[in-house]
């Protein structure tokens, strides 16, 4: 399981990493706030998209740290509303993806976001094992990870009744290939 | 052995690139000494035959440069020049001419630094290519060889 958080020096400001690795220019943001105004979840976020960009623009260690520890980055739905209306064409969802993986990598995930990650992990584990999503397996695994045992118990019977839940997962033939994709991709992320 | 110093000719227009090279001077930006500038009123005046003549006279590389599109002092000389270059380029390509020695560029009167960089890049690239022996050897092919070919 996770070890104690490593103290790692931030040699390079995040904004430079973002520029080098995903070619997005944080500095383009001029803080008009149109992203926050259109974001369906900015009310739920601790930092709105423009504020996250502002923190990144400052570029010092503590601001970068605040970004990686924020809850907002985990709420982003990648609905692309901010990006599609951004006058400066900042691809914020793309930056969000980067921030999320960076946050995990540096073990700075916001405590409230652990459930979200648990869900994503359960989802990926499910695919890793069978190649496809299996809803029962996903929910079971997620519940085990989060102890939210009562979540969605009301939906399940109805779903069975409508023929929308399969008890046994479908395992694709190429599941070993899928497992190898996972292995390689994860290894690569660790090496970064 | 001494490093090969390529001979570079630059055909430039008076209003943009010549002025840009002047600006490189007033800004004291240093670049390689290999280049010799020939001044034209406009890129539209630059005859492709002159490019060939420059190579014939020993140039290892030729730069042709003028105003950016829409910046031409004469409004459209550079556009006409660009068309000619497109065609000339295709001909050289077909002939297998070493086009790596021919450089087209837009350098405005405000781009002193771009001019200096361009010259340095060209000198570096042509230095790597070495002397333009291919073209020099061409002048050695003469009437005599006709006989040989006819006999074949």
């Amino acid at each position: 399981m996770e070890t104690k958080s490593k103290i790692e020096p931030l040699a390079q400001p995040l904004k430079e990493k973002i520029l080098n690795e995903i070619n997005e220019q944080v500095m383009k943001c001029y803080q008009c706030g149109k992203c926050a105004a259109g974001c369906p979840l900015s009310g739920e976020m601790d930092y709105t998209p423009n504020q996250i960009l502002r923190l990144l623009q400052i570029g010092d260690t503590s601001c970068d740290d605040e970004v990686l520890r924020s809850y907002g980055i985990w709420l982003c739905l990648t609905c692309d509303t901010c990006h599609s209306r951004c006058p400066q064409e900042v691809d914020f969802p793309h930056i969000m993806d980067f921030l999320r993986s960076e946050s995990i990598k540096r073990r700075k995930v916001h405590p409230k976001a652990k459930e979200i990650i648990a869900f994503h992990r359960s989802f990926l584990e499910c695919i890793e094992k069978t190649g496809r999503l299996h809803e029962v397996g996903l929910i079971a695994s997620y519940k085990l990870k989060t102890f939210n045992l009562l979540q969605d118990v009301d939906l399940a019977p109805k779903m069975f009744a409508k023929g929308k839940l399969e008890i046994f997962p479908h395992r694709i033939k190429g599941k070993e290939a899928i497992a190898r994709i996972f292995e390689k991709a994860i290894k690569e992320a660790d090496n970064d | 052995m001494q490093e090969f110093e390529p001979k570079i000719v630059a055909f430039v227009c008076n209003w943009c690139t010549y002025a840009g090279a002047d600006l490189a001077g007033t800004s004291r930006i240093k670049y390689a000494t290999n280049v010799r500038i020939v001044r034209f009123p406009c890129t539209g005046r630059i005859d492709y035959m002159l490019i060939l003549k420059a190579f014939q006279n020993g140039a290892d590389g030729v730069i042709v440069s003028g105003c950016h599109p829409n910046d031409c002092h004469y409004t459209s000389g550079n556009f006409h020049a660009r068309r000619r270059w497109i065609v000339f380029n295709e001909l050289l390509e077909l002939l297998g001419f070493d086009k790596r020695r021919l450089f087209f560029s837009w350098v405005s009167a405000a781009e002193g630094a771009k001019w200096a960089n361009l010259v340095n890049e060209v000198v570096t690239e042509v230095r790597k290519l070495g002397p333009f022996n291919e073209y020099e050897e061409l002048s050695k092919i003469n009437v005599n060889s006709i006989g040989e070919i006819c006999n074949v």
Partner: protein
Amino acid sequence: MTKIGYFPGCSLNGTAKEYDLSLQAIARFADVELVELADWNCCGATAAHSLNSTLAVALPARNLAIAESMGFDEILVPCAACYSRLAQSRHEIKSDEKYRTKIPQLIEMDIKGTANPITVLDFINKYVLGKLKDNLSNKLNAKFACYYGCLLTRPEHLSTIERREDPLVMEQIVQLVGGMAIDWAFKVECCGAGLSVVRTDIIGKLCAKILDDANSRGADAIVVACPMCHSNLDMRRNEINKNLASANTLPIIYITQLLGLALGIEPNKLGFDKHFVSTGKFLHKLQKQTMEV
């Protein structure tokens, strides 16, 4: 008979069975054979691109490669979320040298990016609409709110839809089958998508706004073209209604179900019995008005 590649995605095997049923019915009508990609895998969805960018490109890429190996240059991807992942993956592979070399090693298959994912709306426009006019058997005399959500119109580089702030593609289809498409304000707002399980409360809030606006403008049903939108709007009604003054009973139907009805296909062959929010009243109303015509 035209054959094109078909990537149903996980949802159409589970929560969105009615989508699959109705889509297959439409395809049969249009004389297009949907050939399921052999041994396809999950696209990775939000989970993959949230956690691991390589995985987010590689998982969809395997499906693209399968389609290529089967000789398809078109893959119908009915789920807007899956479409987005497949199209993005293809975009990355075509535009990014890094992925072009890395992905084939990861998925252990060759990939050129020749197979082009298309959405269900592209599919309908290209293969169905031309044949529709002469085969309409029902005029669907009702008011519809066409809901696009996010991933059909965004991001711009993956979307084939024009006017992304106020798209009219589905509206045009609705009009073709005799329905009235209402002008409303939430057609491209987000339903909450991937937070369905973890933050059901957020889904409740976002979907409530969408349903409320459609309802207040007199819609009889909301038309969707994405199983994610459908499941949030349809299955999460309890959570949604917590945010509304009175319970909302608008049925959520797939664009393919709509076309099926217009073609005179029986509702239960289109999966109308599989909805959480009852479609009975809506169907009844339609039937009544059709008879009156």
